[in-house]
C-alpha cells in the first residue's frame, strides 16, 4: 500500500515540478523565475522524502534537509540581489 501511495505522490510532485519548470522557462520577470526556483527546491525536498519512504531507508533525509537549507539561502541571496543590486554590502 505504501508503495502505491508513494508512487502516486511521486507522480504528483513530478507534475508540480514540471509546472514550476514551465514558469521558470516562461516567467515574464526575473522575480517569477526566483519564485519558480524556490518551488523547485521545496518540491525536490518533498520528492526526496517520499522516495526515502518508498525505499524504506533514512538515507535520503539528510539530502532533503541540506536541499531545504540551501534553497532558503539561495532564495534569500537572489531576493537580496534583486533588492539592492548586491548581496553582501
Amino acid at each position, binding site marked *: 500500500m505504501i508503495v502505491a501511495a508513494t508512487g502516486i505522490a511521486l507522480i504528483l510532485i513530478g507534475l508540480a515540478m514540471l509546472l514550476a519548470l514551465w514558469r521558470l522557462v516562461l516567467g515574464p520577470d526575473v522575480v517569477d523565475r526566483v*519564485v519558480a526556483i*524556490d518551488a523547485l527546491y521545496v518540491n525536490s525536498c518533498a520528492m526526496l522524502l517520499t522516495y526515502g*519512504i518508498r525505499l524504506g531507508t533514512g538515507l535520503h533525509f539528510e539530502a532533503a534537509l541540506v536541499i531545504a537549507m540551501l534553497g532558503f539561502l539561495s532564495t534569500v541571496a537572489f531576493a537580496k540581489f534583486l533588492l539592492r543590486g548586491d548581496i553582501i554590502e
Partner: protein
Amino acid sequence: MNAVADMVASVLVVLGGVACLLGSLGLARLPDTFMRLHGPSKTATLGIGCVALASVSFFSAREGAFSAHELLIIVFVAMTTPVSAHLIARAAWHRRLPRWRDEDTQP
C-alpha cells in the same frame, strides 16, 4: 499497529503530493507575480509537513521507536518559507511589477 501506521503514512504522503501540485498549479496559472508568489509559499509548508509527518509515522512503526528527526524539516520549512516569501515580495514591489486588475479579463 503496523497496518494503521502504513495507512496513515499513505494518506499523508498522497495529501502532501496533492498540496505540492496545487501550489505549483497556482504558480503556473495565476495572473500576476504577487499572486503567483502565494501558491508555492503557502502550500509548501503544508506539502512538506504532510510528507514529513508520513515519514515520522512510517519509520516510527518500522523501527519500533519514535523517529523525530523529520520534525526538524517541518520546523525549518515553517520558519524559512514566510521569510523568503516576504523577501521575494519586497523585491517584486521594489521592481514595480505590473499588478493584475479585474477589468483586464473582462471581455
